[in-house]
Structures are given as C-alpha cells and as structure tokens.
C-alpha cells in the first residue's frame, strides 16, 4: 500500500505535464473588464438607459482592443504581458453584465509590480502592421481592418436612441473608432503580486454614461449618430472611453 502511495506524486506530476505548460518562476494574471451605465451593470439586451432631456439610449455592441499590456515594477522597469486582446462586452443581461469578460495571461515573471498599462486601441506599431503580415494566431484577426483608413477598428459602440420619446428607439447609433490619432494609453496604479501558482485578478470597468455624457455634458448623438470618418469626433470618443475606463 505504501508503495502505491509513493506513486501518486508521479501520477499527479504526469497529469499536470499533460496540461498547460507554466514556466518556473512565473505566474498568471486575470484581467476582467465590465461595463456600467451610471454605475449600474450595463445590459445589451434591449434595456433603455436615461440620457438627457428624457432621451433614452440602448447599447447593443461594445467592443474594444486593449494592446501592449505591460506591468511596471518599483524601479520603473516594464514587462510586456500581452500584445492584443479584444474585449467584447455585448451579449449581456443585467445579471451577466457583472461578469464582464476576462482575459487570462500566463508566464508572467514573478514579482511585485506597481502598475499596469495598456493602449485602448492599437498602438501605432501594431496598427501599422498589414493584416496579411499578422500571424494567424493574433487576436487582431478577430477585428476588422479598413484599408481606406489604413487602420483597424479600435473600438465599436453601437445602439439606438429614442429621440421622439415614444418609447421606441428609432435612431441607430454606430461609432467605429480607429486611425493612429485615436489610440490612447493609460496607466492604472496599484500593487499586483505575481507568484507561481497564483492568479490574481485585476478588475476594470467602463461607464458608458461617462463616455456619452462626460461631466454631465451630453455628446451630440443626434448630429453624430454614425461615426467612422470624423476624426475629431473619433478622438473625443477615444478620450472619453479612456477616461471612463477605471481600475476597481
């Protein structure tokens, strides 16, 4: 019997060897993104949200790329942990919106980090890569490239507005943001400990009310309801999205 017991560690070792390979001295990190409207979990299932003057909004698509994610340690040294991830916060009810979307990053050098930084949108380096040069495994392939812009679509927000206040939203809203001028980077301070066998979680949240009504000033959605060319509007939305994205 004791012989059999002795073998158990071997078997366990073997089973683990079959699974994902993690290198010694490294750990994992989970990044979770979720969306809210005025602090409440944002459902993309037809739920209407109050905008200004009785106008109501509904959101159907919320997607954005986060790229070149890196951690910074006390000495200011940075460690790259991921190149590109597509965050898709659509397909949610008020209940499931809380779960958001997680990305799991592995093989991160163990250590004590003081902040996490990434681009909302594609860094210029990535955006200047032709889609045909991307490795087939790149998550950028899940996005869309517009050759007229020479850019990927960095983020998409789509939905509808009820301007005539009849309870039925009649105006489609589609915001496609891209072009090198629209990328933003943001650093989120706060300790992150990476250690072998552990997967700490860092939560981010984006508030759509803050995107469309920053500091209580409403964005002119009536004039700008389909946006994919107006660079000024794209840039201001990129600013608002980045400002509204916070670490919890």
């Amino acid at each position: 019997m004791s012989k059999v017991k002795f073998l158990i560690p071997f078997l366990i070792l073997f089973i683990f060897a079959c699974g994902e390979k993690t290198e010694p001295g490294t750990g994992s990190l989970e990044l979770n993104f979720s969306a809210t409207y005025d602090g409440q979990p944002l459902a993309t299932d037809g739920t209407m949200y109050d905008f200004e003057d009785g106008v109501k909004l509904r959101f159907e698509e919320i997607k954005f790329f986060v790229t070149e994610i890196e951690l910074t340690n006390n000495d200011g040294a940075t460690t790259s942990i991921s190149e590109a991830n597509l965050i898709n916060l659509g397909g949610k009810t008020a209940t499931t919106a809380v779960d958001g979307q997680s990305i799991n990053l592995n093989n991160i050098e163990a250590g004590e980090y003081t902040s996490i930084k990434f681009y909302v949108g594609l860094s210029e380096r990535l955006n200047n890569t032709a889609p045909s040069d991307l490795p087939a495994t790149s998550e950028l392939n899940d996005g869309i490239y517009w050759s007229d812009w020479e850019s990927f679509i960095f983020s998409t927000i789509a939905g509808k507005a009820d301007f005539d206040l009849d309870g039925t939203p009649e105006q489609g809203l589609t915001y496609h943001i891209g072009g090198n001028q629209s990328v933003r980077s943001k650093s989120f301070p706060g300790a992150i400990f990476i250690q072998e066998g552990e997967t700490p979680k860092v939560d981010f949240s984006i508030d759509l009310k803050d995107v469309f009504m920053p500091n209580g000033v409403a964005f002119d959605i009536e004039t700008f309801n389909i946006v994919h060319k107006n660079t000024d509007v794209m840039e201001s939305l990129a600013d608002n999205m980045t400002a509204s994205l916070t670490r919890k």
Partner: protein
Amino acid sequence: MRKFIFKFGWVIILLVFQNCKECPPDEPGGGEPTIGDLENIDYNPTPYDLPQLVDFPQMLIPDDNPITDQGVLLGRMLFFDPILSVDSSMSCASCHLAEQAFADGQRFSRGVEGGFTGRSSMAIMNVGFNRHGLFWDGRSATLEDQALLPVEDEIELHEDWPNVIEKFRRHPDYPTKFREAFGISSKSEITKELAAKAIAQFERTMIVGEGSKFYRAQILGEEQLSDEELNGHLMFFDASRGFLPDAQCFHCHAAPLFTDSDFRNNGLDSVANVADFPDLGRGGVTNFQWDNGKFAAPTLWNIELTAPYMHDGRFQTLEEVIEHYASGGHWSPNRDALMDSISLDAEQKADLVAFLKTLTDTSFINNPAFQDPFK
C-alpha cells in the same frame, strides 16, 4: 527498495501515457486481417502549397490537421462521393455545386429522402478564414466539427457514421487513401474524425478572389473599374466624400473577405418582439434573446453566382437585395443600428450591383482542383 519503486513508477507513467493515445476503434467483423494491413503502402504526406492572396489574412490551421496534398485529395473524394448518404444518391456536392460557387441555387435544399433543409445552402468559399463559426448561425466552431454533421442529419444525408466507416473499409481505394493522408496502419483505424479532417483540409484550399476584377483592380491596381463599378465601390465603402450616398455595406461586409465577425439582423423580418422571429438564428445557439433573428453576414465573393439570397433564399436577384437595403428593411427591436433607408436613385442601385459583380471569380468555380474527382 526505493530504487525499485522508482523504476516501477516509470512503468506506471508509461502505461498512463499509452492511455493518453486514442484507443483503436472497434474492429470490423468478417474476421479479415486488420492489424497492420496497410503498412506496406507508402506514407509520405507532402505539405499543400496554400496560396496567399495579397491583403488576405493568414489562415489559422489547426496544429493537428496540417494540409497535405494527400489529405486534400481524400477530402475532395469524400466531398463528391455519394457513399456518404444512406442510399448512395447524394453527396456534399449535391447541395454545394461548383457552378454556383458551392451553393445550390435553391431556396431550400432537398435532402436524400425528399425533405427540405430549414435554411438555404451556403456557398463554400474562403471558409478556412472563418473565425466566428460555420453555418448561418455560427453553430459549428470548426470545419472539422461541421463536416461531421451532414452525414447524420435526418434531412441531409441521413446515414450513420458507423455504416459509412464500414463502407470505407470495404472500399477498394479508400483504405489506401486514408493511409496516404493520415498514416494509419490498418483499415480499423479509419474513423469519422479522419474523414472530417480530410474534408476540412479540402475546404481550406477553396480560396476565392484572385480571378476577380475587384482583386485585379482594387488590390493589385492592375486594371481600372468602370465608372459604374467605381461609383458602386464608393457607395459600398462609404468613400465618395459626400458626392454619393453612403450605402454602409462595408461595415458588415468588410474587404477582403466581405464578411464580418459578428451576427446581425439586417431587417428581413418585421417582429414586435425578439421572441417572435420565425427563425431564431444566432439566438438559437447562444440562448440570448437579443441574438434572435441575427445571422452571419455571408461573404459577397461570387455573389452573382449564389442566388437566391439570404438564409431563407427570399431574394432571387441582386436588384431585389439592393431594394431591400435601400428601404432599410423591416423594423424589429434588434434590427442593426446601421440598417436605415438609403436614398439611392435607379442608376446608383445599378452601380452597386455592377460593383458586386466585380467580385465574381470564375477561375474559382472552374478550378480543376475543386471539381468532381470521379468524373
């Protein structure tokens, strides 16, 4: 003693390792010699030279199913062989015809016993680039998964896989072809999974675009579009800078694949409530009600050849399709935000159709590598 246990431990580990491998499938009856009966046939798979079109993404090919000449040939045979159906009357190619860019020209397709499919057959082109799942509702994640389904579908081929495998094992040619493609050492190792892998390999080679006017003119810059085609192009891509209406097509049919990674409602049905769609589409897969009535935006390559159009084949002509988009389609709560009426005059509508026809690539449908290998 320690030493003994240590050695013994390795034996166990090796045993476990053996278990990791797939168990050999049940051997067929008849008492034929089955072990190693194919080992005298050469197994020298040669990598298939997949064309890389300018501006096209790189295809994601599963590590466990690299494309080889031998696999593609086997897949092509299986695709065209009625051996896959219950009465040997139909093959994949019965509903996916080369001359229609591998769609079939019908609203709904007639299956092996006379019943009709619930949706219109889909053209098989550039499916190797698909990243959102196959079928109108994206329910099959990979080509390998998809290829398993038609055989046992009650409407489509209504056969069952164990029977088909038996037919392969008795066949004069297939055991050799499976050996050459996958290196199996005996007939008993032929499985439905290998058959599906071969079909998937063949489908990944079905890349369309190179022979089209669009590719020559807009990607290679070797030719000019006519004025009508160019106007259509500008409206399709919303690139006229204001002198033509924006048709917004490119949002959902983005070049160079002319499709989208999402599922959308383009206003085909008028319903008051998302629960009322006659075909739930994507919602039937995700069980998220707001996805009801949403479908994949199919590729528009060779669209001239794949009528009738939409998941239920409701439109016979491209002119009808353009009328539909010009009207903005029918209202439903989750009709896509981009679907709105577009004011297009008769000439502009004709220009859009002219542009769509620049996506016709007859070199694809006539490619000898995609034709029936039994003819």
